[in-house]
């Protein structure tokens, strides 16, 4: 446990000193500030609770930024460290491989999640200050969705880092994974149904398997579960699962997927050459 915490602390400190973390934090802080400046007042005029609209917009933007940021910085850091000889030295010290791997993942998870959740907290404090209602149910679910999304892509990132032997290959692979998942979002699924005549079950399976799609549908569902917002496959899925069932799926599936990917990554890491 001590080694795990030492490895996590080392990774947290390393991230806090790096430029990517500064840019990453500024992006999420900036998004919230920008949304407040442009969106909150306007949404009140349209009759929505200001924070609900702001949060759902924030989550949609986060869905686009968080995964690619997590993937690229994780693989760059882990595969880059290996390439630069950091592993050769630090793993010559008597730190357990499990403690090293999971400590690194834990440290990175904290660093990745912190700016996202702090930006959300900032939104709530601001809303409270302005006298707007805070939809606590929505806030709690969104926090959960963000946790599992970050964990899921962190797990995928760790797996790619274990598989790739160079930072360049790892970065390319990470980008391809992100692009692939992005392509299978709802609108493209619709195109597939129309053009290829794909069975609806296959389309639904893809939609359920894509963590980005799961995140998007779940965040929309809490806001306004209408067909116009959700897209066709999501609507069908909701019809089958029901609201509660889908929310459970949206919390459990990315968590399991991330853990499975991370565990496979660990298995590969400990069975192979370390540096």
């Amino acid at each position: 446990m001590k080694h795990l915490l030492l490895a996590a602390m080392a990774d947290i400190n390393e991230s806090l000193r790096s430029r990517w973390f500064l840019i990453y934090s500024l992006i999420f802080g900036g998004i919230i500030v920008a949304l407040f400046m442009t969106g909150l007042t306007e949404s009140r005029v349209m009759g929505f609770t200001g924070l609900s609209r702001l949060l759902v917009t924030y989550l949609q933007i986060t869905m686009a930024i968080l995964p690619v940021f997590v993937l690229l910085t994780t693989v760059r850091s882990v595969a880059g460290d290996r390439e630069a000889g950091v592993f050769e030295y630090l793993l010559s010290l008597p730190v357990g491989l499990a403690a090293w791997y999971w400590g690194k993942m834990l440290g990175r998870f904290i660093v990745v999640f912190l700016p996202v959740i702090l930006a959300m907290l900032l939104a709530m404090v601001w809303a409270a200050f302005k006298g707007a209602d805070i939809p606590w149910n929505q806030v709690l679910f969104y926090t959960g969705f963000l946790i599992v999304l970050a964990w899921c892509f962190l797990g995928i990132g760790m797996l790619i880092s274990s598989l790739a032997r160079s930072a360049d290959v790892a970065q390319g692979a990470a980008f391809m994974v992100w692009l692939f998942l992005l392509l299978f979002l709802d609108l493209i699924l619709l195109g597939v149904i129309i053009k290829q005549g794909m069975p609806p079950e296959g389309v639904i399976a893809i939609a359920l398997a894509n963590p980005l799609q799961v995140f998007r549908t779940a965040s929309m569902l809490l806001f306004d579960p209408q067909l116009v917002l959700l897209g066709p496959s999501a609507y069908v899925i909701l019809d089958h699962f029901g609201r509660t069932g889908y929310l459970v799926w949206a919390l459990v599936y990315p968590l399991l997927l991330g853990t499975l990917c991370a565990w496979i990554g660990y298995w590969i890491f400990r069975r192979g050459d370390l540096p």
Partner: protein
Amino acid sequence: MIRFDNVSKHFRRTTVLDGITLTIGQGDRVALVGSNGAGKTTLIRCLLGEYICDGEVILAGQEVRAHRTEILKRVGFVPQIPPPLKMPVQQLISFAAGVCDSDPDKMYAVSEQLGLAAGSFRKHPFVKLSGGQKQKLLIAIALGRDCDVLVMDEPAANLDPEARHVLFKLLAEKQNDAAMIISSHRLDEVAALVNRVIELDQGKVVLDDHVADAVDMDSVLNCRISLTRPDSAFAETVREWGFVESDDGRVWSGPVAGPDRLRFLGVLSRYAGLLNGIVMEESTDAAVSEGSNNA
């Protein structure tokens, strides 16, 4: 203490280690030499449990990779190329001491002995230190904890003469209780430190020989050099060794650490045309720094 039993390592179709069988005992100070690509680094990485290899690598009766954590507590490692760690010196020492269950103060103390006041570099990122400072810090981390196997890749390459002498003294303190593997591509760099030479070539052991153990690692030679004429380049070189001049730069005296004598003579050979005479005598003084100050 250490046993390599028919160890082979392949990278795709390239065989880097080819059936290495070796036994290294307590008190062995091994120079692991060979040209670039001979397999020295790979052999070291197998010993550190970093590479999966065919055959067995046993340390203190345990297979290294299977018992990595327990084994590595006994092994101090100094790499040839310092890792580009961004973490500050203090954090690196805390991390190393934490995972080794060691006292960080001991590591600071060794670094002070080597001439690096690590305490005043606490906040400095490791990667921003000079080559010599990094080397000193890595040596301090390796020697500032209890270990009975030392694995060092060209440990003295970036050190100044005074720090080298301190390193030799520290190694001398451990020479009877520890096994040492000192890797170098040049035997003359490490010859005076070792009592056994193992040469690798294309992944095979081509020489395994014990050598005369006549040089006391802790010894100091008082040296006096006379020149045919003063020379500024020579002056600059020997000042780095702590030499002082007399007779208008024609005579230079200073201390040379015993294991450094071959290296020192190598340096002098560059100025062979200037040399008028050399006297080297075993000193009764203990330390180079003292010798330097007295001179």
